[in-house]
């Protein structure tokens, strides 16, 4: 398989503190890949570097052969790489419907249309996405007033509205009840399959990780200490020592 995302020698330091340390990483098209590691291991930073939220100190990131370093988030999204956020990142005072609708408007390049009424555009597409993540009944509610779990679902819908080929989900089930977690994972799995997406995600729930990931990379102090098939990673002595063995998943 060809590499969809190819990362070489990636570093990020925050005023001397190294959050990403010499990370090299290949993601094949069509793969479902989990990045795990304890709290503060650098998973979110890794996603921020890929998606243009942060600029790497050193190293390269290529998506389908295109160098991403230095591109702003809006350009990267338009190349087909969308993400959700670990910490809720929505438009809290807009309705649930508008949260997704405006993402479709942006995807279709209609943000420069000064004439057509915004609320009349892409209503069907918006309804479909809300249905996909199970938010049809909440469509007219104010997004900021949804339960935490539902706001996470909205995160997912907004990311999907960009019609990405590569989807990055940062802790998609953090803060969800076990039932919400199960539903979310089932729907993510269905969506990824139906749309032929490549998925890169971080997750603290190991049953989720080992349930859907085809490959797993383990981050520790900003370094990838193991990468491979789930069974290989599970039995890696170093991984057992620093992460899986000690029970402090985060």
């Amino acid at each position, binding site marked *: 398989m060809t590499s969809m995302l190819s990362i070489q020698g990636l570093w990020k330091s925050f005023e001397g503190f190294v959050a990403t340390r010499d990370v090299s990483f290949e993601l094949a098209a069509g793969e479902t890949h989990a990045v795990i590691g304890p709290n503060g291991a650098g998973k979110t930073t890794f996603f921020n570097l890929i998606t243009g939220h942060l600029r790497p100190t050193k190293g390269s990131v290529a998506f389908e052969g295109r160098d991403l370093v230095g591109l702003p988030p809006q350009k990267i*999204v338009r190349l087909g790489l969308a993400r959700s956020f670990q910490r809720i990142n929505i438009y809290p005072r807009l309705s649930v419907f508008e949260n997704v609708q405006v993402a479709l408007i942006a995807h279709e390049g209609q943000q420069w249309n000064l004439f057509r009424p915004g609320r009349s555009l892409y209503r069907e597409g918006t309804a479909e996405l809300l249905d996909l993540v199970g938010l049809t009944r909440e469509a007219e509610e104010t997004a900021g007033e949804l339960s935490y779990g539902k706001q996470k679902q909205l995160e997912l819908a907004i990311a999907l509205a*960009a019609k990405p080929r590569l989807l990055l989900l940062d802790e998609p089930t953090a803060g969800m009840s076990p039932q919400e977690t199960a539903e979310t994972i089932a729907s993510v799995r269905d969506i990824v399959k139906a749309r032929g997406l490549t998925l890169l995600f971080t997750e603290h729930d190991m049953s989720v990780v080992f349930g859907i990931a085809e490959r797993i990379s383990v981050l520790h102090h900003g370094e990838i200490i193991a990468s491979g098939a789930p069974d290989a990673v599970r039995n890696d002595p170093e991984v057992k020592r620093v992460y899986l063995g000690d029970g402090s998943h985060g």
Partner: protein
Amino acid sequence: MPQSRYLIASAIVILLLALLPLSGSRYAIDLTTEVLIYALFALSLNVLIGFTGNISFGHAAYFAIGGYGCAILLTTYNWPLAASLPAAVVLAGLVAAVVGYFCVRLTQIYFAMLTLAFAMLVWGVAFKWKEVTGGDDGFTGIKMPELLTSPVAYFYFTLAMVTVGVAALWVICHSAFGLTLVAVRENSVRAGFIGIDTRRMRWAAFTVAGAFGGLAGALFGMYHRGMYIENAFWTESANVLIMVLLGGIYSFIGPIIGAAVLHLLQTFTNQYTPYWPTVLGLILLVIVMVLPDGLIGLVSRVRARWGRA
């Protein structure tokens, strides 16, 4: 549908305004002409404040550029009104585009300070460029088309132009562009991650606000038959900002209400006391302390209280 209700309500308001000259009161006609102009001015600023979340302290600059521009083209260059007015609007929009290009690089208080700095520059130009602007004597003796010299005729002209301006702003604010501006206001980081160039959106909003502010200024200059450097002064920027806040920034019509209430209050206050600035201070206090969403916010709170949606 609410949409058609708005249309009907607007049509009634315009009709009532159109009947105003039947009252025969010159005072009422003049006062309403002024209110209409300020309403458009405040509405133009709210594209930037309410819809985009960027507070400008220098909006009088574009009002002044529109006013001086139209006055100079009409008078110095003898252009017809049909050319002077659109040219003044375009000029205000162009200057706003240039100024905005720099301002949108900053956010929040730094953005506000830069808009203020540029507005002071515009004031300085109006003050110093005596041959063209008349300096601190003002630009007087604007040549008006014969047809518009009577107060009633000018009132109807203003009503027509403000209606067109407000309708255009309504369409823009409710367009896909307008909805995207709101997304930028609500969460500019997320807006970037759905593919929006937030800086360019804010730049466009700045330009639109400037162009429509210029239209208001052009109408104002012709109404007074003159433009004065005070019209470009920072206190004018503060005044229109207070109109917007008083009416309410999160609704389309809020600034219209704010402009009407503030201008009428100012006019009446000035008849009785010379202490308008003090009264203005009190109004500002009330906005900040009890009316954070302006008069429109108050209306919806009262309605909610009485069980109506």
